[in-house]
């Protein structure tokens, strides 16, 4: 069990370092997927089967596919030659990394961790992570946060559609507006041509 933990932890940490040290975002995204899958394995060692499954399905599946899709859509590799406006951050980051890590481990030494909960027949450990127990808790005690999350998802859908939509010329409704609209249409077309030439 310890061997499994150590292997998954080493995989997660190495892949996480690869995420932050890669210049090419697509390699970073692949490394992040490796980290997420290692974390899913760690959730399995904690007997959280449902969370491990949705970690792979939702995080490594849906969210990271979205990232990879956007990276490939925007063709980011042309950006690498840009000059760095804040070169001192490269030197501050390792120092801050070590300082923060030291602080956190000092807190671990200073604060005692709670003892493991008493396991009984009414409260066995293997029940905690199952879909059944999570579903029962989510739809009884935590139904309000669940509904709030669904509203949040709806807002995110609408917001993402509005933000990523291409701007179009206004819709033509009357003859008087027609000329104005045609004018603005030509302006947009000129802008697009200029943007294309700029590209």
């Amino acid at each position: 069990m310890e061997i499994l933990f150590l292997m998954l932890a080493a995989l997660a940490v190495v892949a996480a370092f690869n995420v932050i040290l890669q210049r090419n975002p697509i390699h970073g995204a692949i490394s992040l997927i490796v980290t997420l899958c290692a974390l899913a394995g760690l959730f399995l060692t904690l007997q959280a089967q449902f969370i491990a499954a949705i970690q792979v399905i939702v995080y490594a599946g849906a969210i990271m596919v979205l990232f990879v899709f956007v990276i490939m859509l925007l063709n980011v590799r042309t950006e690498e030659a840009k000059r760095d406006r804040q070169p001192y951050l490269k030197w501050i980051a390792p120092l801050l990394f070590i300082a923060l890590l030291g602080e956190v481990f000092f807190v671990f030494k200073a604060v005692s961790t709670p003892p493991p909960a008493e396991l009984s027949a009414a409260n066995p450990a293997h029940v905690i992570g199952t879909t059944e127990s999570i579903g029962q808790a989510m739809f009884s005690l935590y139904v309000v946060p669940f509904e709030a999350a669904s509203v949040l998802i709806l807002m995110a859908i609408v917001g993402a559609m509005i933000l990523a939509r291409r701007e179009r010329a206004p819709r033509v409704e009357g003859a008087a507006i027609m000329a104005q609209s045609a004018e603005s249409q030509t302006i947009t077309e000129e802008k697009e041509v200029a943007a294309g030439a700029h590209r």
Partner: protein
Amino acid sequence: MIPLSWYLALSATLFTIGVAGVLLQRNVISLFMCIELMLNAVNLSLVAFSRYLNDITGQLFVFIVMTVAAAEAAVGLAIIISLFRNRETLNVDEADLLKL
């Protein structure tokens, strides 16, 4: 049984790597991925506490965190696409104006 402190140490390490990544990277998509890394580090400690306290609440919180991360990724990537259309850049240092 693996001690709780091992999981917490790994979670803290991953979170700190994410913080360092936010400082190191200049590409806005890479910054987003570092934020996802930090969210996952916190998720790990939540699940570990849930296991050791034998309480389901931590795992439900992880579920909500994943929902928020998905929403954040969708809206954030839409903003990135909009930014790239208007400014032709993905460098966060270039995106420092409120107007186009």
